[in-house]
């Protein structure tokens, strides 16, 4: 043991190799390897009689994804949903994040941060299921709205929008809160000393400085909405990208097509991450 330690002490490269052997093996084989295989599979096809995979490369899956109107409609629908959810969460998150960062006492702030982190980390499926109960025919929302002569959205696209916004809201609050907290008070004082009213300070000082944080939060809201197939299944009858991919992996048994269609959210996210990096969102993460 002692001689190993002595040998290692003189060789930092060997220390590093020992540290990284297992994690790199894992990441490369289990994760990057799978991703690579998944990408390759998207160029394969399935024999329609035997159901066996044909490994001759073909672009047919991509051609089908791009040419069939139904897949284009679903992709656009998912993209619009992700954008709507992102905008909704920004609007809802900003006031509470501002309160936490700039108004609340240290104690209240601590309690609020923990209360937002708890649902961020836990109970994803449970929360979707809770909304399924709330939105059901004789459920909470309808019975609360009934005396007003209104009714809830039921299981629909509006329900998906509502539930996705609910689910990913904490992912937007936390980065915006952190971003607002980092703004030096002296800048806000300078703005008001120079005659800027609250509104001007918000628009000219706070919002530009908070932008990287907002973009950082939007990476999560956007990506999580793009890939979600559970929420549409539980609270709507509409298909989103995730549902199509799920169906083709399972019932339809066409892995290659599922892989090709899943490249749509992957490419959208890669473009999104590149733009986000340019806007300085990675520093705000």
């Amino acid at each position, binding site marked *: 043991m*002692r001689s190993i*330690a002595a040998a*290692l002490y003189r060789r930092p490269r060997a*220390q*590093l190799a020992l*540290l990284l052997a*297992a*994690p790199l093996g894992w*990441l490369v084989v*289990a*994760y990057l390897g799978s*991703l690579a*295989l*998944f990408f390759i*599979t998207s160029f394969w096809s399935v024999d329609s009689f035997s159901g066996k995979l044909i490994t001759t490369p073909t672009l047919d899956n991509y051609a089908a994804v791009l040419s069939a109107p139904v897949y284009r409609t679903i992709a656009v629908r998912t993209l619009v949903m992700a954008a709507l959810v992102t905008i909704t969460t920004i609007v*809802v998150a900003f*006031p*509470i994040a501002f*309160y936490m960062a*700039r*108004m609340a006492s240290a104690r209240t702030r*601590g309690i609020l941060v923990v*209360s937002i*982190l708890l*649902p961020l*980390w*836990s*109970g*994803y*499926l*449970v*929360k979707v*299921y*809770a*909304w399924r*109960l*709330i939105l*059901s025919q*004789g*459920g909470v929302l309808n*019975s609360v709205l009934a005396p007003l002569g209104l009714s809830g959205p039921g299981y629909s696209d509006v329900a998906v929008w509502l539930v996705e916004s*609910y689910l990913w*809201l904490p*992912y937007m609050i*936390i980065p915006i809160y*952190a971003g607002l907290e980092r703004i030096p008070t002296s800048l*806000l004082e300078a703005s008001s000393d120079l005659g800027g009213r*609250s509104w001007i300070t918000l628009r000219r000082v706070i919002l530009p400085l908070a932008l990287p944080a907002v973009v950082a939060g939007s990476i*999560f809201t956007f*990506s999580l909405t793009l*890939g*979600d197939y559970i929420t549409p299944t539980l609270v709507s009858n509409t298909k989103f990208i*995730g549902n199509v*991919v799920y169906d083709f992996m399972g019932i339809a048994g066409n*892995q290659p097509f*599922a*892989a090709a269609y*899943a490249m749509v959210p992957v490419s959208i*996210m890669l473009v999104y991450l590149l733009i986000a990096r340019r806007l300085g969102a990675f520093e705000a*993460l």
Partner: protein
Amino acid sequence: MLLPRGIRIALRVATGLTMAFIYVPIALILLYSFNASRVAAWPISGLTLDWYGKALANAGIRDALVTSVEAAIGATIVSLVLGSLIAIAVQRYAFFGRQTLSFVVILPLALPGIVTGIALNTAFRALGLDFGLITIVIGHATFCVVVVFNNVVARLRRTSRTAEEASMDLGADIFTTFRRITFPAIRSALLAGALLAFALSFDEIIVTNFTSGAGTQTLPLWIFTNYQRPNNLPLVNVAAVFVLLLSIIPVYLASRVTSDPAATGRT
């Protein structure tokens, strides 16, 4: 910043409403698990503990609960080892590809979960692995590594290297230095990371759906296959409360373990 009174009140109200929006659905699912009636109609007809007894007596739920706990423990152990190794390497050594490595570790959280799910599913099939507990653990570990990594990296960044250097100068070898200096410094970060990894694994469904076999069900999967059966509705409510508690309590403990609440953040 001095804000006009009206705006201050509005922000206070908005904060209260947002917190209510976040917590009302969670409170409702707790309430529904005590619902005396079989249907989800509102208002609920009465309170009972019956469904808890029936849920615990249900073989499907019990098996799923055990599988979930096993999978979460497995994923936690794997991610503790791998996550802290990567964190120490990235934070204490300079090497080619360091930035890339930090990026790849975070990738499973930045890409939609369904992509990780079908990629792993394709790989397992290609390798001819039997779907079951092992494949579930592998799937969970891919994204649980991130939370351990983040916690340990954040802690190492705040701990000065001088204590480690002093230890070595005084003649301690690298193993002793790790045992006496580095490990105590990152201990609570490891614990917080482990608790978060457990929580993340326990309620995961998006990836699990693709990495579990027909014979193995985690508790979230049990809910997903039973929520449409009207007869099972009360049991699904109770199972949902189990999943909620077993994921929310570890997260709460993690936030208590680390003095810095931001350390439990995603980032």
